[in-house]
């Protein structure tokens, strides 16, 4: 099966501007070729989920998009700008509009929730006054429904709360793209569903385009417009959940059984 067979993107979507364009991406770790000529495009305002086996290179893919890993070959364009060979200063400008939610939340243990939220604002060198910072922190905490946690330390928070704070830290810069690395992993089904619903709500509120890495089909069902099947290091197929569920392909079928 190839990508075209299942990719039934509407023709009007083709005209949408693409916020992420990946072409012929290759990356290896020693003898392990993780991504092989991986190509894919993310249209503006859409949320695509990347589904694949553990160790298939899903997290590697989004870490390449944010510039944390350098591909061996191929091109990644974010907002129509190639990020594979640019200076760190320029990459930081792109990162200002690209949020990343880490699988482990990556909250700074030694900082309070407020300091965690302020960190990206201060580090990106944005000229914001103290009152503006206060307003942004308050606003973003209200959006993730944790208004009274400003002075708490990450160690005092539950798994779901940590995820919400990590999401708040991602949203505080009001990014145009958000990359989610397994947002519901390690959470109980109820909290996982709450986080998925929150992601949907915030996607609409902030009008973001996003890529979500997940094994959780319930989360994908709620959040994603389309699913990208990452199999054998390639973009094997793209389609909606219903389309992929109907597939008879032996490599796709096991994911939905």
């Amino acid at each position, binding site marked *: 099966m190839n990508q075209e067979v299942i990719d039934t993107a509407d023709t009007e979507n083709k005209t949408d501007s693409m916020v992420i364009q990946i072409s012929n991406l290759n990356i290896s770790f020693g003898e392990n070729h993780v991504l092989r000529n991986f190509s894919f495009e993310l249209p503006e305002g859409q949320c695509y989920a990347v589904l694949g086996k553990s160790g298939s290179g899903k997290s590697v893919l989004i870490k390449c998009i944010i*510039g944390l890993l350098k591909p061996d070959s191929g091109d990644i364009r974010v907002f129509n700008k190639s990020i594979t060979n640019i200076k760190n200063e320029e990459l930081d400008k792109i990162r*200002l509009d690209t949020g990343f939610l880490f699988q482990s939340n*990556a909250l*700074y*243990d030694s900082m309070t929730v407020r300091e965690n939220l302020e*960190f990206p604002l201060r*580090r*990106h060198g944005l000229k914001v006054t103290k009152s503006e910072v206060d307003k942004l922190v308050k606003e973003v905490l209200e959006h993730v429904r944790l208004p009274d946690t400003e002075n708490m330390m990450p160690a005092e928070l539950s798994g779901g709360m940590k995820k919400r704070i990590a999401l708040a830290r991602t949203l505080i810069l009001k990014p145009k793209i958000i990359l989610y690395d397994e947002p519901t992993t390690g959470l109980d089904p109820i909290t996982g569903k709450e986080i998925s619903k929150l992601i949907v709500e915030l996607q609409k509120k902030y009008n973001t385009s996003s890529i979500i890495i997940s094994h959780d089909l319930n989360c994908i069902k709620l959040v994603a417009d389309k699913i990208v099947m990452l199999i054998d290091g390639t973009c094997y197929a793209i389609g909606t959940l219903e389309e992929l569920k109907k597939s008879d392909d032996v490599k796709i079928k096991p994911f939905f059984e």
Partner: protein
Amino acid sequence: MEPGKFKEALIETGNISRFTMRFFREMARPRFEFAEFLKQCFYVGYKSLGLVAITAFILGLVITIQSRPTLTEFGAEAWLPKMISVSLIREIAPVITALICAGKIGSGIGAELGSMKVTEQIDAMEVSGTNPYKYLVVTRVFATLLMVPILVVMADAISLYGSYLGCNIRGVVSWQLFWEQVFETLSFSDLIPALIKTFFFGFAIGIIGCYEGFNSKKGTEGVGLSANSAVVISSLLVFILDMIAVQITDLAGLT
């Protein structure tokens, strides 16, 4: 040593050298992280002061008590303050303080950066527009570079006070006589080389702690390994640097 282990050791040495070269490249470039540097100075210096002070005091006291019988045997008991002060200032206080710092600060940095690495906090910093090497490594190395010599100077003074008490346990040496003898014996050629080498000790402790933490692998198990390796390698480096410093001092005729 097995050939495989030898090769591994060479690769590790190469990696540490590259990591150190990066420090010199990054330290000269803006932006300078003064707030983080001051915070690290507080953790490295102030928070280690108690441990260093207690150790230095006991060291001065014990060495004085242990040395007395031998000097008494030769009828040179009166030389006790002179001999102890030279030993403490030149060698014992700097090396022991550096070893304590390697244990406390080196392992702390290794474990802290190691856990930041395995929980993706270092990646999160990079995504937040921060150069993690500058923010985490350069500040910590500068803090150890500055604070270890200060701690050594304090350890020098406290260990001499311990030595004064040691002299008075089985004898009577007045406060004035003790310090007169100490300052009569000590010269800048004792103090300056001993102080200079502590900057190298501080640098080695900082850079090895950061290297081990920054390159931590294998999840939480790796954090423990990083802390452990940071202590082992930096302690070994303290001795190697001390040996080199002593040779240079000897060749320069400062012994």
